């Protein structure tokens, strides 16, 4: 595990993404994300793991202000490059989408319009480049497609999405995102919909981006191997909350939260083999709760206070390692 560029930065720079106490619910009743704190520093790669329905995509979409109208978001801070997104108008958020943060979605087969040629769509995504002629834009796009290793890019511009494989489309999506030169790249399970070979190729590509482009990445994944391989820090999500967060090697070596422990205990060889899905832990289906610990129904170490008091966010790292766990057991 290589240390990320962030650890090499001497002074505390401003975070690219900062969330403080962010909660999101759908239709006013169904909480999906509860009281999340998260920070991504320049050049840093932060992973989010958590089982299906734990609120990862909801969180990812909120970063770009892409939540549907039915979602309500509240909290202290949600800022991109220091610009507040909670109070921002739709118009202001539009300006940030792309240059401040770009996103790669889970299912590449539905990322692009089935009715338009890819070239047309990529040109439209470059709407900010008003100073460039169509020919110059085309050159830029071709170069970007080459950089992500898409074979025969010129022909792909004339193709429709259904004529490409999922892996190729995900490359196109990554190329488009990188063309924005974003400060932050949000990748929502970029390989989940792909087969194993494609997945390996896309991961390799993400590796290169990390080396070359100097962007921060918020990487959402089911794939513990991916997280272990490319992330600097990891946040474990459970029922809408981040239950543990810290440097990736520390968390994998010394998980402190009972959920994280259960996760790793399910399959000791998980990290080495790189399982594509998180193991499912027995007990009731996770449901976000506003008060108490969401894991209480399944927790082997549950305490009296777990159901009626929200567990505190406790620093559990040795020395000055920033490692946090949200558990009554971790409280001093």
């Amino acid at each position, binding site marked *: 595990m290589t240390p990320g560029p962030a650890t090499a930065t001497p002074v505390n720079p401003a975070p690219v993404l900062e969330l403080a106490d962010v909660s999101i619910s759908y239709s006013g009743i169904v909480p999906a994300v509860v009281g999340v704190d998260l920070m991504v520093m320049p050049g840093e790669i932060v992973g989010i793991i958590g089982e299906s329905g734990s609120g990862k995509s909801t969180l990812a979409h909120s970063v*770009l202000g*892409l939540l*549907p109208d039915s979602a309500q978001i509240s909290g202290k801070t949600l800022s991109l490059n220091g610009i507040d997104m909670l109070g921002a108008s739709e118009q202001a958020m*539009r*300006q*940030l*989408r*792309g240059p401040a943060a*770009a*996103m790669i*979605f889970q*299912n590449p087969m*539905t*990322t*692009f*319009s*089935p*009715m*338009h040629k890819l070239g047309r*769509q990529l040109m*439209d*995504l470059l*709407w*900010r480049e008003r100073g460039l002629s169509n020919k110059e834009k085309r050159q830029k796009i071709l170069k970007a497609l080459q950089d992500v290793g898409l074979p025969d890019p010129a022909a792909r511009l004339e193709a*429709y999405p*259904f*004529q490409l494989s999922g892996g190729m489309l995900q490359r196109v*999506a990554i190329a*488009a995102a990188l063309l*924005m030169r974003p400060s932050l790249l949000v990748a929502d399970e970029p390989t989940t919909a792909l087969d194993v070979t494609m997945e390996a190729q896309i991961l390799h590509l993400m590796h290169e981006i990390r080396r070359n482009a100097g962007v921060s990445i918020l990487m959402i994944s089911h794939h513990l191997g991916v997280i272990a391989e490319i992330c600097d820090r990891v946040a474990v999500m459970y029922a809408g909350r981040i239950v543990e967060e810290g440097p990736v090697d520390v968390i994998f070596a010394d998980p402190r939260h009972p959920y994280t422990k259960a996760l790793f205990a399910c399959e000791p060889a998980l990290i080495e083999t790189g399982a594509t899905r998180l193991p499912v832990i027995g007990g009731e289906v996770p449901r976000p709760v506003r008060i108490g610990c969401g894991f209480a129904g399944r927790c082997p170490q549950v305490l009296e206070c777990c159901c009626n008091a929200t567990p505190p966010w406790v620093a559990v790292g040795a020395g000055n390692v920033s490692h946090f766990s949200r558990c009554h057991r971790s409280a001093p």
Partner: protein
Amino acid sequence: MTSFIMRRIGLAAIILLIVAILLFSMMHLIPGDPTVVALGPRSTPEMREAFREMMGLDQPILKQLALFLGRLAEGNLGEDVWSKRPVLTMIFEVLPYTATLAVASFLWAVTLGILLGCFAVVHHGKWPDWLIGILSVGFVAVPSFVVALYSLLIFAVSLNWLPAIGAGTPGDFISQLKALVLPSFAIGLGWVGYVARLVRAAMIEAMGENYTRTLRSFGVSERRIIFRYALRQALIAVLSVIAIGFGGLLTGSVFAEIVFSRPGLGKMTYDAVMSRNYPLVMGTVLVTSGLYVTCMIIADVVTAWIDPRVRSAL
């Protein structure tokens, strides 16, 4: 693509054949002397004799059918019972009137419908959207003859802006255009509401698709997403429905031609039925069916052509 079109044409031919056979059986299934059924009680014995001769009514029934279909294949639809003029010639004389009427109604439906639908989507959830929603339902619910009568009263009688009856002076384009406005509007208005609702629903569906989220995530403006992307998807939905509706516009022309005393296929069919003019009824019904299936073929081809997934699968 060619084989696709050929298949459609084959299907259309089969449909027309069935229509022809039905028309043929009609004459024989109705009890009584087929010549009286076909020509009506007012026909003279000479007329019946001539008709019996022409249809070969003394022959076995299958032979009659074969003769009948053979004549149709030659484009011979028989003669008008009263005027003795070839039916096909008579139809071709009035066809342009009905065609322009149907096309004009279609243009109302498509342009106004798409405009209103887009406007509703742009103001989705705000008052213009509600207003258009109410109007659309109103347009669909109000029967065409009510629209026809009221527009006649207002624009022709009270304001005297547009002619009340007829198809305009032959050769005078402006006068013909003026005469077209009210009847086409009366037929098209119901479709305006229908198309507006269809466009709105299809576009709102498109706005929830993953690809629009992608466009949004790159800061592409809602307007561009609506007009360049969602509209394209909506048009496919509209097109397939409207093509079937075009047949409905032809049927709608029957009443509009009667109310506005316009010459046309609809009025001709009506008059022919009223005067028990069997060859003419048969001819107009066959030609109307022919137009109907032609529209269906065109719609199928255009729908296939507009959707790249379908186009490449052909």
